[in-house]
């Protein structure tokens, strides 16, 4: 199993714990990664499509040339890529992008690249049974709430285009079960974390952070797990400010999906860089350390 690894900006920027954790987890599972180093940011839904479609087509063309599917570790990268790739399935549009933007560099995108988040890779390509066999530290007794990030849930034509892919909407719950943890389910798991409006409407953004983390906490969660580093910035990084705004105390640790899986694969909390979080992960670490 080999992938063109697209780590995205945040896994080495605002969430530098994510990149090494994901690489360690992939290594342990025997997933081979060839990092794409000379490609652009996806645009993250901030830059307009007339800019991002050409720069993302360039990334896809490079992966096609490598002969590998792309693996992401960010719901936002995954979603923006998926939406761009869908538009680029239109042969006329693709030909225009190739001609106007990629030909200069001798590149051409043929429309064939497959793009998968690590969560999809482990659940679909690696397989649940295979993964179960790799669990060396079942996270028994740890209550976990899932949080997907919008772009790993919608739009359906990108995320769940076939009947077989419908299961993607419950992969986190499945993963929680596979690693032996307990599900603390809650209604906000597929909603927006608030990050996209942090600039335009900080109050709304922080309200969303408080709403989701409080709800998960009220369901008894010890922590929340997310496959999206932007959600992590909002739910972990902004949690203290959200507490202040709403006049409440929450203190819910937020784990990146690779960190969560990594703990169950036997990595120590330090090897998964849990100390880099804004909300203390001490309670989770103590529980995990007692499991070893």
């Amino acid at each position: 199993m080999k992938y063109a690894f697209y780590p995205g900006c945040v896994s080495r920027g605002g969430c530098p714990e994510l990149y090494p954790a994901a690489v360690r987890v992939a290594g342990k599972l025997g997933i081979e990664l060839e990092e794409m180093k000379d490609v652009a940011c996806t645009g993250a839904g901030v830059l307009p499509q007339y800019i991002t479609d050409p720069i993302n087509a360039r990334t896809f063309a490079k992966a096609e040339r490598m002969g590998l599917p792309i693996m992401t570790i960010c719901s936002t990268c995954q979603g923006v890529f998926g939406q761009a790739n869908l538009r680029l399935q239109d042969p006329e549009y693709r030909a225009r992008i190739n001609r106007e933007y990629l030909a200069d560099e001798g590149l051409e995108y043929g429309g064939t690249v497959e793009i998968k988040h690590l969560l999809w890779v482990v659940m679909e390509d690696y397989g649940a049974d295979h993964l179960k066999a790799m669990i060396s530290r079942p996270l028994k007794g740890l209550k976990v709430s899932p949080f997907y990030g919008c772009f790993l849930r919608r739009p359906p034509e990108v995320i769940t285009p076939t009947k077989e892919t419908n299961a993607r909407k419950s992969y986190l719950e499945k993963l929680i079960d596979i690693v032996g943890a307990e599900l603390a389910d809650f209604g906000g798991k597929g909603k927006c974390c608030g990050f996209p409006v942090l600039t335009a409407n900080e109050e709304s953004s922080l309200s969303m952070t408080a709403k989701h983390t409080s709800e998960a906490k009220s369901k008894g969660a010890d922590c929340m797990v997310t496959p999206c580093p932007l959600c992590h910035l909002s739910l972990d990084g902004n949690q203290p400010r959200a507490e202040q705004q709403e006049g409440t105390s929450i203190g819910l640790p937020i784990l990146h999906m690779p960190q969560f899986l990594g703990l169950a694969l036997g990595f120590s909390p330090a090897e998964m860089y849990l100390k880099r979080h804004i909300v203390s992960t001490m309670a989770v670490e103590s529980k995990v350390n007692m499991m070893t």
Partner: protein
Amino acid sequence: MQANFSVYRKEPGAGSKAGRSTYTVELPEDATVIDALLKIRDEQDPTLGFRGSCLHGYCGDCTVRINGKAGFSCAVKVAPLAAKGGEIAVEPIRNMPVIKDLISDWDTFLWDKIDVIKPWLEPNGAASLDGEELIDDKVMAKVRQAMSCFYCGLCDEGCTVLPVDFKFVGPAALTKASRFLCDPRDHATAERLRILERPKGMWDCVHCFEASEHCPREIAPTERIIEMRDMAFKHGITNEKVARHHHSFANSVRNSGWLDEGRLAIESEGLTNIKGLMKLLPTAAKAVARGKAPIPFLHHKRPGADKIARIIEKAEAKEK
């Protein structure tokens, strides 16, 4: 068929408390939820308030939540719900103030917001002498699609922002704005964008695609909002804070190929905005202490950055 209903009740007035009434109704096998509500009102409880008009799933007037899922009460059949046993819960849709029972206040929910976006065509005067203006059908298809919105409220009901900020203009009103922005006969694009860029306008949308998922007519409100934002990018963003954020983001990708998050956080607040920058300090200090903060001057150029910059410059030149 016999079915049991638990219906949300509330009397008009700010002080009234919400509750529920339960009813058991005998219904034909093909009955819809609104058939049940009509029967309850006619035979058991004349005080029950709800809306309904066409009774054929066409007008969107009877939108309610049935067992936690929003839909048209005239289009949802009772039989499969009754077969599950227990009570069928009928409630008003979310994000809307309730006037009485299942009757919600559409003025503050939708109509007042639509008023704000200038919901009429400003003709560009290009019509021919006989008063006709011929437009390519492909162009009109998009306008027609937006015009097929029948204001059922499902997109606003599914919106992620409205539950935390009811003053957000919402996807339904933004879809109405899109109807004029994509109409080639309209000449008020710049003015419309200025209105939409105000606080609580289009930049407050989180583009979560809930609105598109909830739309029963595939009008794709989320995609339309994204298009409007791209249009603003092209025309020059007039919302100062959003403009700073977007310019910093674009400059970062143009200069280095990827995002300089440290610089983005500072530039989005504004270099002279001391109060805004101070607000970031506690989290930034924590992040630095934990080896987490991206330091702007350590941000390096990615291989291939010059090629990425050339593509961005070309795309911008082409669109402007």
